[in-house]
């Protein structure tokens, strides 16, 4: 591309920006976007990995695998929910600072965007169907029925993953948007095609499901081993499988990461050999090294660290991914999200961070404490006075939030 073509693309991207601007410094949206994407993709990988274990268990005659498959189905269905709800945040933040790119990419593949919604619902319902058909079996070593539903669910999840991968890839090619809009001289208003993808990039993110699921298995053993009714042979076996998955999976993912870096578009320049280009791959292989060094024997503390470590690895990868986007759009196409018009709004900015920290922090601390303790208790769990107090405080914080909403609202209304 010559300079004049680049300059036309730059001008187009700037023209597409929303004239309302953004209510705080753009870097904050990018930071939150990266953080929430790392959380989102962790649960996506958890959902895919545990679904794969469920499926493997369903087709395996080994009673341990069948039990593990049934146990991981519980994780899978919660992970889908969490992946969806957490995924809302990066979806929100990307359209704040990269709205020209996200909206164009979506409109050009609109049918797939709508299809995404329907396919994801079907995938989730298929998983629940499998769960309801087999969930009643007390004996988890019995071969499950309706296995087609679980296969369908996993395949459809991969399809929605690919749609999202393609939409994200299209963002990186503003130079091709107009070409995609006009096919053989005729405008294509149908939105029926997915125009860009990189199989290595897609395979890399999907492959991380293997080490993440491995991390889940290690955590599973550690979490369940304290129960009075724990079957230690089975749990130890599950943890050993998990360790293998972390190590082998991380190596596979690193190879795929390298393949992705080797197939970056020319517009990415020398990103593959830059600090962040290398850091992403190092982080992934580091997970295998960490597992080799720290998950020996009982590893009582580090077993609980397996998933947080996966999150850290995912965070580094998420930063690399964001830096790649910035590298292409800023360094090559001169679109800098940092110069988005700021129409500062302190109230809504402050309200979000306070709600996130205080409301979110207090309630989730209470919820997760209850869930954690209940999972480790045989029979009915009755919380201690301190945990009870956490619940009361959380309720009051919620009530105070609601009061401030209406007090501020009525004040503004009456003003």
């Amino acid at each position, binding site marked *: 591309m010559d300079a004049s073509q680049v300059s036309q693309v730059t001008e187009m991207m700037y023209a597409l920006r929303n004239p309302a601007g953004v209510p705080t410094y753009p870097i904050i949206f990018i930071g939150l976007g990266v953080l929430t994407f790392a959380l989102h993709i962790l649960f996506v990988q958890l959902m895919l990995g545990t679904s794969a274990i469920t499926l493997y268990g369903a087709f395996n005659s080994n009673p341990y695998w069948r039990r593990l498959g049934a146990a991981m189905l519980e994780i899978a269905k*919660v992970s889908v929910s*969490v992946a969806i709800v957490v995924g809302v945040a990066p979806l929100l933040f990307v359209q704040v600072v990269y709205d020209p790119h996200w909206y164009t990419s979506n409109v050009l593949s609109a049918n797939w965007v709508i299809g995404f919604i329907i396919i994801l619902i079907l995938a989730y319902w298929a998983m629940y169907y499998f769960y309801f058909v087999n969930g009643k079996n007390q004996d988890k070593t019995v071969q499950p029925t309706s296995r087609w539903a679980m296969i369908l669910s996993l395949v459809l999840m991969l399809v929605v993953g690919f749609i999202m991968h393609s939409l994200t890839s299209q963002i990186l090619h503003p130079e091709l*948007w107009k070409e995609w809009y006009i096919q053989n001289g005729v405008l294509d208003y149908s939105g029926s095609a997915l125009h860009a993808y990189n199989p290595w990039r897609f395979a890399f993110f999907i492959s991380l499901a293997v080490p993440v699921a491995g991390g889940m298995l290690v955590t599973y053993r550690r979490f369940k081993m304290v129960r009075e009714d724990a079957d230690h042979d089975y749990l130890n076996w599950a943890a050993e499988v998990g360790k293998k998955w972390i190590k082998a999976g991380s190596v596979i993912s690193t190879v795929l990461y390298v393949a992705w870096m080797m197939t970056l578009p020319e517009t990415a320049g020398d990103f593959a050999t830059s600090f962040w280009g290398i850091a992403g791959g190092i982080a992934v292989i580091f997970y295998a090294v960490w597992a080799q060094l720290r998950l020996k024997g009982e590893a009582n503390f580090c077993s609980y660290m397996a998933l947080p470590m996966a999150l850290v690895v995912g965070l580094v990868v998420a930063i690399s991914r964001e830096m790649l986007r910035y590298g292409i759009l800023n360094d090559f196409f001169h679109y800098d999200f940092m110069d988005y018009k700021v129409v500062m709004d302190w109230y809504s900015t402050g309200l979000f961070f306070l709600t996130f920290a205080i409301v979110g922090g207090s309630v989730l601390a209470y919820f997760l404490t*209850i869930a954690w303790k209940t999972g480790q208790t045989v029979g009915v769990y009755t919380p201690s006075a301190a945990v009870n107090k956490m*619940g009361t405080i959380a309720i009051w914080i919620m009530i105070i939030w609601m009061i401030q909403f209406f007090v501020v609202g009525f004040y503004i209304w009456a003003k």
Partner: protein
Amino acid sequence: MDLISLYPTWYEPMVGSGWVVALIATFHVLASHTSVGAALLFAYLSHKAYREDREDLLDFIKKYGLFLLVFTYVAGSITGPGIWYSTTVASPNGIGALIHSFVWKWATEWVFFVIEVVGVYMIVYLVGRVDKQTHMKISVIFGIASLATMVIIVGILSFMMVPGKEIWFEEGGYLNGFYGTNTFIQLGMRMAFMFTITAVVGGIVVAGIKDPEFKKEMARKLGWLGIISTLIGAALLQWYLTSVPDQALLVMENRLPEYFVPSIVAVLAGTLAYFIITMLRPQTLVQGFAGFMSVAILVAGLWPEETARESMRKPWVAGQYVYSNQVIGRDVPGMDIKSQLPIIEKVGILKAHPFTPEHLREVNDGNMIQAGEFIAMTYCSNCHSPSETGIRPLHRYFPDGVTQERMEKYVKGVLTTGNIAYMPKMPMLDSEVKALSAYLVMNNNSGPEATKVAIKQEVEARNRALAEKQAQDKVATLDLAQEVK
């Protein structure tokens, strides 16, 4: 270059992009309102179960909660972002306006959304696994979190119709855009409706209760909840209509389909009758009856209500400054937003649109129909489908055999001047008026297929001309090279 923030157009010929948004939104409203209402109901029932030490109420929560988890939380949590997706592709500047003004509000809602999703699993799966007091606390938190998601989103929905306070246009500010009369009345109305739908959908679960006494108790509870909320909701609807702009009332009087009012009245009467019957004779409450009522409310109540709300905003799609065709049609000094109409008046829509292909930037005899189609897709297709079916098809608005001259007169005299109250002003150069008219006439008189063929012929003719020119250039270059030799 004078470019404005217009994206490519997505055109769905069967139902139209507008209806796709409406379908997803309607389904989401059913799911989300049921979820929020049920969350508050659960908080009440769990509190009662704790105070009266009752297992049956917790069992009901578990059954209803599991049912909701699969049918409303799964579908609701996906169709929620699904509304973003569908509006992104159908109305990118409309959703962009909301996102850029209320991103933090949505982010705040997201915090409650996370609490809600974790909470629903805990409410369902911890029945019998934690003591009743703990379950009650979880339910109360869950109920408030669900309500918080609603109070937040209603402010944003209200902004779509009209910014909270008029002063927002002059001074901007999130609070002025968010809070207003319309916000609070709509919130009350939606909460009332939320309890109505909760009572109806809850009937599907109550129908499965085996113990006659408990079934009677729950049928009565839900019945009273439904009757009171339906009556309050109907009253608030009347009040709500006083809070919308005059323009919206004008559209409502003139443009809403004839079935709108009878449909709403019938669904209100039917809902009240349903609750009275199920309270008096709980044995009539079977899953089929409750399921039928849920679908009836969805089809005869929600669909007309959501589509009416969409229609009443016309010609705007968000905040009374973004037109339904994505053009910004009004200055908003408080946000330093400038109307894009002057730019279009100056250079024409084809040169102002960033995605206009090079060969369509100037209208000529060789691209007339294709340029006209591009303008129609940009200006018209969001509200009027150029196909036989779809949203308010264009062919319904023009007589058969309409002439080019008459069409040009209409386009120039009515559309470019913004003379129709509920339609955007659509500036065009004379050449663009001619192109749009040519397209509309052909589409109307010969149909979409013939128009496609005409565009194909234009493209082929241009390609031929280009090939000939390239060949001639090549010959000229060869001649020149021989002469030099």
